[in-house]
């Protein structure tokens, strides 16, 4: 068996890492719900197992999602991940093929060139050295790109890089040292024993020409082993924990295991899968437009993991969902933040007894459709008026539930973490809405819509007015003509990323014209900045976000900015230099007999 004391740092580091990982993973798997554990067992023996393997290749190795953000960023991460993977796999194969023994020491492939010098009877030697050197070359370029990224992060599509913890920066140094040290160590050996490939052999020859390789070879291998060992030891306490954890996360997701109501078990896999890549900073409008730092997902997860004060990231967030969409690991950050909000917001002593005492529900003849405008919509009478006029024209059998003023749906309270305290409002509104006898609840506010769907138990269809109006057009109860003005459509956060509804508004708009092309659409849409989810943000900070989003949306100079949320409509109108209106208002303008 090959052995030399210099393999010890690597070996000890590797064993240490495996113990820590096993300990953590078993603990977290143990925290899973019983039903999730059953899913896990079933999943291993299902087709999803292979789908998960495919996902691991696509995301952990090829970093497909990172390529979507920026080509060079993806290239850098992919080169490092995939080619290190190849180095390990092909190197293991090389080592086992050479020794004709399938079970050799774990460090044999790693330090292969040091131990094996004679390849006369190993025909594949040339192929292996070529590929191994090629992989090493790509890795060296990748490290070079990584160093370049530190100096010029904008080249990689990142407006501002993550502020890393000291431990993370130390771990990164170890990581960056591994491949250059491997290169130097293998080259030194190649210089002496001529067992190198196109890269290592040439380097070795150059080195031999001006230094005494017999002197330097051994220390270089010690350094290489130490760099690896150090990296393994520090990995579980650093951002690189994401390397093994992300893999497990992918499998769990494929097996159908999802977020739960507590931050343990599955959530721990998510939190420690964060690689601190910083994509969430670039895509966060609070950082980009308002220069606010420290609240972004990466910092929230960092603080959550290392038990620092994470109150600010939890509450000082628009909950727009953009970081969810852009995260290459697919962490459901919004859900984690929401869990923390429910946990951290103290029970607020409300007194909503007046709802029962003062609000007397009057039941009339049942109608087909109950329309609930919501608090925000009352500040946009253009929208509510338009909807009522459309209903009248199309002969809809409706009642305007909150014509004289709403009882709040409760989501503004719930989204701050006080869902329990909103029960009084939920009860009253349920009473009001169900007493209408309607089969369909139509609302013009996506915030209310999300609340009705997720926290209410209403015995009827609950839809947004864009879906209802589209239905009216499709069933020919409403006819629309084309408009001569140009417009761009803004997907509201709550309706789009929040509820997954993008099509109805667009299909409705298609009857009237073609919306301007914009890259900020559907899941990539911007937040207007007016989100109720953020309690702490200052007015001037919000204004920067709104102005920036407005400028980005109206680049093609449309006549109108159209949206489907009264909050977005009102927020944009405080900075707009052109008309901002709801889809319903455009429909009202273009109704024909």
């Amino acid at each position, binding site marked *: 068996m090959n052995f030399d004391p210099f393999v010890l740092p690597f070996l000890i580091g590797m064993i240490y890492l495996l113990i820590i990982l096993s300990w953590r993973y078993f603990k977290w798997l143990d925290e899973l719900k019983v039903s999730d554990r059953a899913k896990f067992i079933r999943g291993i023996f299902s087709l999803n197992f292979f789908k998960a393997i495919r996902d691991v290749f696509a995301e952990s190795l090829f970093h497909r999602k990172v390529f979507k953000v920026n080509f060079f960023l993806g290239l850098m991460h992919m080169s490092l991940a995939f080619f290190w993977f190849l180095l390990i796999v092909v190197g293991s194969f090389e080592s086992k093929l050479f020794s004709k023994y399938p079970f050799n020491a774990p460090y044999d492939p790693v330090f292969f060139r040091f131990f094996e010098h004679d390849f006369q009877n190993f025909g594949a030697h040339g192929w292996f050295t070529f590929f191994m050197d090629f992989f090493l070359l790509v890795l060296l370029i990748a490290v070079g790109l990584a160093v370049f990224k530190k100096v010029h992060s904008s080249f990689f599509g990142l407006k501002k890089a993550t502020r890393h913890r000291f431990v993370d920066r130390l771990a990164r140094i170890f990581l960056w040292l591994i491949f250059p040290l491997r290169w130097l160590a293998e080259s030194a050996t190649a210089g002496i024993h001529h067992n190198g490939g196109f890269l290592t052999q040439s380097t070795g020859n150059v080195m031999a020409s001006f230094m005494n390789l017999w002197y330097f070879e051994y220390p270089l291998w010690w350094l290489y082993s130490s760099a690896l060992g150090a990296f393994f030891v520090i990995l579980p306490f650093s951002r690189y924990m994401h390397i093994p954890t992300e893999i497990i996360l992918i499998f769990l997701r494929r097996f159908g295991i999802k977020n739960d109501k507590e931050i343990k078990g599955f959530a721990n896999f998510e939190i420690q899968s964060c690689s601190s890549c910083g994509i969430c900073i670039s895509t966060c409008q609070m950082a980009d437009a308002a220069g606010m730092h420290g609240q972004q997902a990466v910092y929230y997860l960092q603080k959550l993991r290392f038990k620092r004060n994470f109150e600010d990231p939890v509450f000082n967030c628009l909950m727009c969902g953009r970081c969810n969409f852009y995260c290459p690991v697919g962490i459901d950050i919004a859900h984690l933040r929401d869990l923390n909000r429910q946990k951290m917001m103290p029970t607020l002593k409300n*007194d909503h007894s007046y709802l029962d005492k003062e609000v007397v529900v009057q039941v009339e003849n049942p109608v087909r459709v109950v329309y609930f405008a919501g608090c925000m919509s009352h*500040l946009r009478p253009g929208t509510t008026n338009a909807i009522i006029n459309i209903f009248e024209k199309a002969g809809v059998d409706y009642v305007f539930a909150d014509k004289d003023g709403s009882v*709040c749906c409760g989501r*503004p309270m719930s989204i701050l973490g006080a869902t329990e305290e909103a029960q009084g409002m939920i009860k009253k509104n349920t009473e009001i809405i169900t007493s209408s006898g309607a089969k369909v609840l139509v609302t013009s506010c996506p915030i209310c819509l999300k609340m009705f769907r997720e926290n209410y138990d209403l015995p009827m269809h609950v839809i947004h007015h864009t879906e209802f109006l589209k239905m009216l057009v499709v069933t020919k109860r409403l006819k629309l003509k084309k408009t001569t003005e140009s417009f761009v459509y803004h997907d509201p956060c709550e309706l789009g990323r929040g509820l997954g509804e993008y099509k109805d508004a667009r299909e409705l708009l298609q009857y009237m014209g073609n919306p301007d092309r914009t890259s900020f659409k559907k899941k990539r849409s911007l937040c207007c900045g007016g989100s*109720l989810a953020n*309690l*702490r943000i200052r007015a001037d900070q919000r204004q920067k976000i709104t102005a920036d989003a407005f400028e980005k949306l109206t680049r093609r100079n449309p006549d109108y900015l159209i949206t489907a949320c009264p909050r977005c409509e009102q927020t944009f109108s405080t900075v707009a230099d052109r008309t901002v209106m709801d889809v319903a208002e455009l429909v009202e303008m273009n109704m024909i007999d």
Partner: protein
Amino acid sequence: MAKNKFGFSIHHDRQHNLDTADRNLYNRIALVEPSIQRCIFCGGCASTCTASKFTDLSFRLVSLNLRRGYIDEVKEMVARCMLCGKCTMVCPRDVNIRHLMVLLKKEFSENEF
């Protein structure tokens, strides 16, 4: 030249006494959310308030009472707020009313006044 000891004291003095008014809560809240300081008491918030249709709730009054030290009145009103946010949306001075309401609600939940 004896001093005249005639006079009277007031049983329920109706005057605001700014010398003794307890501005402690107001000062603490203003540190966390400074925008309360620019309130001009126009009443736009109270006018649009969702709850004010059904019950007594006026952030304008809350803002004033905090400054005059009438904490009991503040406590009663604050409990009725539904946190809908309309007040914050119409305030001409950009006072972050909703945040202030949450801060006050938290204050009264945590410390028994």
